């Protein structure tokens, strides 16, 4: 469902041209997550569930403050807690709000084979249009940050929308509104970079020499950015990817391999046509049927055990 107040500049698996008249003259948007101000209170998680009408399961404690245990179709954002003993021997409790990074060059969108299931708005938000989703899971493979989750209920992919519905009408995302410490801020990407620069200067005055902004170029930059105390070691923050890139498989498939595969598909179709003209239809006999049934049974068994 396209939002009338926003232009969609990219759609998955679509070749018709995108509208270009309404440029994003006010700049693209960005969420800045300042891990150095975050206290891990999870107000963002709650606000996300409230605004989006989601309720994850009441789970269990698996030996961590992190709850729910992981991102899910109903948990689109999650605080991840990491304990780090720095070289000075002091402990640091690094808390990172995980969720969709809204890449400028989104691997999910590139990988998605279903027309219009993943879109990118002119303001930079990458959104899933679940009604078009076929549940193939290619977006999961395509995402360098391991964000999308396929729902067991409807077999569709879900993730943070950056509250595209709120942003479209001039409001900040729900998580931003709920954050009590100002660790989450929202605005144009340029403003957020400026704000981050001030924060980084402050952090350097507090002895964090390697403080910096996480806006990884490998995915064209992101519309969700982090201020990190240790920008040289993003992995400390619950395994934040140091240099994210779209999976080579997706790049290959959607890049150089695409014309080749299209040619192969065309040739296959052509071959089929000639086969039909020269030989006629393929008939299925009883032996083929039995073989097919046996192979289906073999596939079903592990599922039944699970």
């Amino acid at each position, binding site marked *: 469902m396209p939002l009338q107040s926003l232009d969609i500049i990219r759609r998955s698996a679509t070749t018709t041209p995108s509208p270009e008249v309404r440029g994003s003259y006010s700049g693209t948007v960005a969420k800045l997550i300042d891990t150095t101000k975050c206290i891990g209170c999870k107000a963002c998680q709650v606000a996300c569930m409230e605004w989006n009408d989601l*309720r994850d399961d009441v789970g269990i404690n698996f030996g961590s403050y992190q*709850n729910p245990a992981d991102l899910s179709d109903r948990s689109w954002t999650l605080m991840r807690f990491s304990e780090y003993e720095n070289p000075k021997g002091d*402990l640091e409790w690094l808390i990172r709000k995980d969720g969709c990074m809204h890449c400028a060059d989104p691997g999910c969108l590139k990988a998605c084979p279903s027309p219009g299931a993943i879109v990118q708005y002119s303001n930079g938000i990458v959104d899933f249009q679940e009604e078009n989703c076929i549940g193939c899971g290619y977006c999961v493979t395509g995402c360098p940050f391991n964000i999308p989750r396929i729902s067991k209920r409807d077999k569709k992919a879900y993730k943070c929308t950056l509250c595209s519905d709120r942003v479209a009408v001039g409001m900040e995302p729900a998580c931003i509104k709920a954050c009590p410490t100002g660790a989450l801020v929202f605005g144009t990407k340029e403003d957020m970079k400026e704000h981050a620069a001030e924060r980084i200067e402050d952090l350097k005055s507090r002895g964090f020499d390697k403080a910096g902004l996480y806006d990884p170029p490998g995915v064209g930059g992101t519309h969700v950015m982090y201020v990190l105390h240790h920008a040289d070691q993003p992995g400390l923050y619950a395994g934040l990817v140091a240099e994210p890139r779209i999976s080579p498989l997706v790049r290959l498939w959607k890049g150089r391999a695409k014309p080749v595969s299209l040619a192969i598909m065309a040739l296959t179709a052509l071959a089929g046509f000639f086969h039909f003209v020269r030989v006629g239809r393929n008939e299925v006999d009883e032996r083929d049927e039995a073989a097919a049934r046996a192979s289906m049974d073999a596939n079903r068994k592990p599922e039944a055990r699970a």
Partner: protein
Amino acid sequence: MTNHWVDIKNADIVLIMGGNAAEAHPCGFKWVTEAKAHNKARLIVVDPRFTRSASVADVYCPIRTGTDIVFLGGVMNHLLTEDKIQHEYVKNYTDMTFIVREDFAFADGIYSGYDADKHSYDKSSWDYEIGADGYVKVDPELKHPRCVYQLMRKHYARYTPEMVERVCGTPKEKFLQVAEMIGSTSTPNRAMTVMYALGWTQHSIGSQMIRAGAMMQLLLGNIGVAGGGMNALRGHSNIQGLTDLGLMSNLLPGYLTLPNEKEQDYDKYIAARAYKPLRPNQLSYWQNYNKFYVSLMKAWWGDAATPENRWGYDYLPKLDKGYDMLQTFELMSQGKINGYICQGFNPLASSPNKAKMNGALAKLKFLVIMDPLVTETSEFWRNFGEHNDVDPAKIATEVFRLPTTCFAEEDGALVNSGRWLQWHWKGAEPPGEARSDLQIMGELFTRLRALYKSDGGAYPDPIMKLYWPYVMPNSPSADELAKEYSGRALKDLTDPKNPSQVTRKAGEQLAGFAELRDDGSTLSGCWIYCGAWGPSGNLMARRDNSDPTGIGQTLNWAFAWPANRRVMYNRASCDPSGKPFNPARKLIAWNGTTWGGADVPDYKVDEDPSLGMGPFIMNADGVGRFFARGGMAEGPFPEHYEPFETPLATNPLSPGKAEALNNPAARVFKDDRAAFGKVADFPHVATTYRLTEHFHFWTLHSRLNAIMQPQQFVEIGEVLAKELGIAGGEQVKVSSNRGYLKAVAVVTKRLRTLTVDGKPVHTVGIPIHAGFTGLTKPGYLTNTLTPVVGDANSQTPEFKSFLVKVEKV
């Protein structure tokens, strides 16, 4: 709070100790991040655990639970020996120059006047020396061996950095780093705020920990200034209002006190509280006690409070002893209480030693629960397996549940930590049969009164004559009660200097407590709230957040008690001549004729500073006291005593004195003493606390909170976990001498093993949010484990330090 939430942004140093603001007060914590972002403030966290607050701190300093006085005493020793004190402030605004009586003594951890059998002190020697002029003797040179300065130096000389390391387990370098940072605020242009909460309150020496913090702030000149103060973070919505309105058993509204049973004489009761000045030209504002008291009695008994019946003095109960929570439940467990009303209170979950509480509730004939939700207390008689293993067939207590509205379903004022009375409006209709507390109490009262009328009673007057002027007697409104606690004139009030001029007409609301009279012509249900609903209307409902000075003094936002004053003791922010110590953060100043500025002056507005009136106008001497006189149960200077369940055999500060191991003035009931555990059986130190994701027990019923923190857990350090072979996520059993619980283990680096008195001490962290009702996984009440012993002054239970044993299940 002496200051208020917004003011924290003015701090240069923020010390969070005895609290975990980021965890328990995440919204208020934003002002810490403001101070860091815009004031280059540095945040120090001193805590047994590396907390959420510590995660954004500049310095984290570990400490063994229950040893904060050693740490703070060490800081005071450092400030005194390194001369990091605000001299002008300390000399003029504190009792440093005062001379103490000759018979006052302190040796081996015990003060003069101790009665070991009674566990209490004769405090008569704990006082200043009074001269022939009736005033306290002073030595401006600070040389007299018995002046407070010298006594204090001597007292805290024992609190060396080495002693801090030995008792607290805090590495010496870390301690010194923190002490130096704290000392940097002794200059007039720098301020430190102290944010504390139940991490100080819930110890058997909790009040003295807080006092030690306040003394440190006085030494630094940080009380009464913007960005400074002693800031108690109140943990329940409106718990500040509860204490203000005198819901403690020994209090009347506005921190007036109930008479004790020896005080049958009204005049003596007043005289003992209307302190005469102890130094020349001091305001000693409690001299107005009678005005507050009479106005209160007019609010309660109206025309029935007359000069003839001493304003209804006989209607007030006279205390034979304190009836705090621990005393009440002791009496209940002895079968001496028949009925109990729990109004917004879940004692089975909230009071120590659940087994004792279960037994006590089972001895009641009836129990009334006023609460929006099912509580553990309302279900105390039901068997929930291991989580509440009782036999309902053996419990005869009749339980009545009266469902109440919650805060969002009613009008009223909530008082925040910064003493702001903020009015709120009903947001939704209550569900089902829920009624407001006002309606339930109103109906209960009118029915009781009808019963007294028809059947009579032993002493019906206090009930029959209670002033009950509400439009709907069965359901007084929040507006009516607010106007009553604020107060109004009952007769035309005239200017004492010009009796022909009427200053306030009969029936008009009063603008402030300065208008209160002791002749029965005014009514005010809580003098410190006087003016909250003034002649111009409900000031609590104001929402103008303009901040003309930029330092967060929004005087037109709501109403702050007293007198809409935002920073208490703000006179102390100026030097003796009336000039602000720090012009960049000016609160008030003397302009030659009056005091004024960004705050309501905490001083006589037209008092010329050259006349020497002190800034602490509630004290008879006008100064901030390092020497508490008889104000505290266990001594005039805070002294360290070990928790009642301690891993140590002796108190390292007074090793030779068995009586000085634990608080010598604590009240411990016989059975409760027998239930204390020993370190040989329970080798691990435990502390309890809140988590951000929950609020006590009631959010266990809320789905979103349950999703965020679904199951009971305990936190143990990596060293202990390794020793016991426990991995994160596994079940552990934690036992004390009073019971056990089983929970998931969170194994963490954030709880480190401390070296105390040469031995390793492991701390176990036990969050309080678990119960057998609600949507989370059922769990054990944390207070199954905790000991029954309170602070000797407030009787707040020692929930923060006790002994347990952790085992792998």
